[in-house]
């Protein structure tokens, strides 16, 4: 009889531990999937931006003859961004450069009233502004999820399971925000 009770308690504890482990394991898996999902969302938005830029250049070309440098900077940055492969930190840096060149393109576009009245330009601008927002929101969600995953991987007791099934810490998608580039002042 006593043996039965001891065995019962033993199995109960075993069961509790197992349930705990399964819960933690599932949690880790779902976080890892979320991170991957969030990363693909960033990727989708970056690609979308790459696709939108040629249209934008095509539209503004006729109006902005005197801004050859600005246009070329955008084209060059896009080319770099499209060609980059692999390396995480490098990618972040180059995409950020592209954001900066686009920002200055939109800043100088303010000088051209005809362009600002062009419906095509306006809708492309809205799409690019929104894509920019989407990239930063996707990055925000990605980083939040990475933080949660990394906490789980490091903290006890989930770290035991993380080690056992080789869940690794993930890298944040970070960009060192340089100070907002000064909007060029128009000289008359």
């Amino acid at each position, binding site marked *: 009889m006593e043996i039965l009770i001891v065995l019962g308690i033993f199995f109960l504890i075993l069961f509790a531990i197992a349930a705990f482990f399964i819960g933690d394991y599932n949690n880790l898996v*779902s976080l890892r999937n*979320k991170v991957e*999902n*969030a990363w693909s*969302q960033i990727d989708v*938005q970056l690609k979308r931006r790459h696709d939108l830029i040629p249209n934008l250049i095509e539209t503004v070309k006729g109006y902005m003859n005197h801004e050859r440098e600005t246009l070329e900077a955008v084209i060059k940055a896009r080319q770099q961004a499209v060609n980059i492969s692999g390396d995480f930190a490098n990618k972040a840096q180059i995409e950020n450069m592209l954001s900066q060149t686009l920002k200055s393109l939109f800043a100088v576009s303010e000088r051209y009233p005809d362009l600002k009245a062009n419906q095509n330009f306006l*809708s492309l601008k*809205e*799409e690019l502004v*929104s894509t920019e*927002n*989407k990239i930063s*929101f*996707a990055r*925000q*969600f990605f980083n*939040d*999820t990475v*933080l949660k995953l990394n906490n789980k991987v490091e903290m006890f007791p989930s770290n035991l399971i993380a080690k056992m099934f080789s869940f690794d810490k993930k890298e944040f998608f970070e960009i060192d925000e340089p100070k*907002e580039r000064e909007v060029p002042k128009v000289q008359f």
Partner: protein
Amino acid sequence: MWEQIEKNKFKTTLLILSMGVLFVALGFTLGSLFSDFTSELGYYKEDSSFNQYELSTPMKESEINLYGGLLGVLIALIGWGLLTITTYFAGDKIVLWSAKARHINHQNHPILFNVVEEMCIASGLERIPNIHIIDEPAPNAFAIGKDQQNASIAITKGLLTKLNRYELQGVIAHEIAHIQNRDTLLMTTLGTMLGVIVFLGEISWKSAYISRYRKTSSSRDNNLIILIALLLGILAPIFAQIIYYATSRTREYLADACAVQYTRYPEGLANALEKITGSTEKLSSANKVTAAMFIVNPLKLTSQGLADLSSTHPPTSKRIQILRSLTNDVSFKSYNQALNKTMNNSSNKTMGVIPVSALQEEEILIDEHIDLEDDNELNRTREISNMFWGLNNFIFIPCNCGTNLKIPEEYRGLEIECPHCEAKHMVSL
């Protein structure tokens, strides 16, 4: 987030159960009350066509009551079941239809669409909700749908006109939070129940009132059941409404707390709420039950005294005050502190708004936001009215003088003259 959803599910079950108890009690009372009526009919209208009620040997009163009561519960349950199934599968369509909401797509209003997409990404919502617009000047918005895969967001023309991009982001984030937290299903289910209880309650006390005068010479003493019916008929709807409104209010705070985490910019939502409450227009397509779904209560109460228990929403001024006091950190922990401070609640409890498990989170900092270049209400008004022309199948012909001619689909002429510069335009349909 999933802990919140789990908690929400439990709470939902509890609320539905307590509403269910009220509901069954009402059904029972009504049933026994009506069985009194019908058995009376059986006694005194023996020559009528109500053959099934001709009881040769009168049953004992208590048996009739029990039998009638159970029958009442059964009928009420079947009715409620049918209604709930309808609400589950078609509730969103019914509400959207009754609010006269029109489905729009990306071309109709790119900014609104983009903002919704941005907030979906920020919140991790995988499917983009259907977007609807309501042609009303009163500024308001709501979300509805049985789950994240079948959700809709509706926004009025007035709100879309009034808000700039950051404010619109705040409002949409709030609605997306409702979808993420599954408030939409909770509120529609509870709303349906509330509707049924209010309806049954009305029948109950009215028929109790009538039956007082119907009392006949037969000494059947049904005073007790009449009293119960009267009390329950009056009290059940009140309790149901208190449950419903209390739930609704906590969900509003939680949605605000989630929204500022998505946008990282409390000022946007605070400004939007300020603009919504600042308006004097009344939303004509809202009623008592759908009121809880809107971002701000569309049925404005003139006196705020009684509003505390019977309000679907926390006082908007409180919500704004909480949002404005988040100056650096927008985590749940920080929101909870602000909430307690605003409510003069000295203890650090969660007041049932924020799940305890979420309070251990680290700081979430507000993003820096630069001023918007084109925050222009006139432009937005023009854009939105153009959208409605387009939705009504009008054709646009831009004139060289800057006028945009809008021509109805039915126009059969080949040519049209610009009213400003009198230039002729060909109409090609």
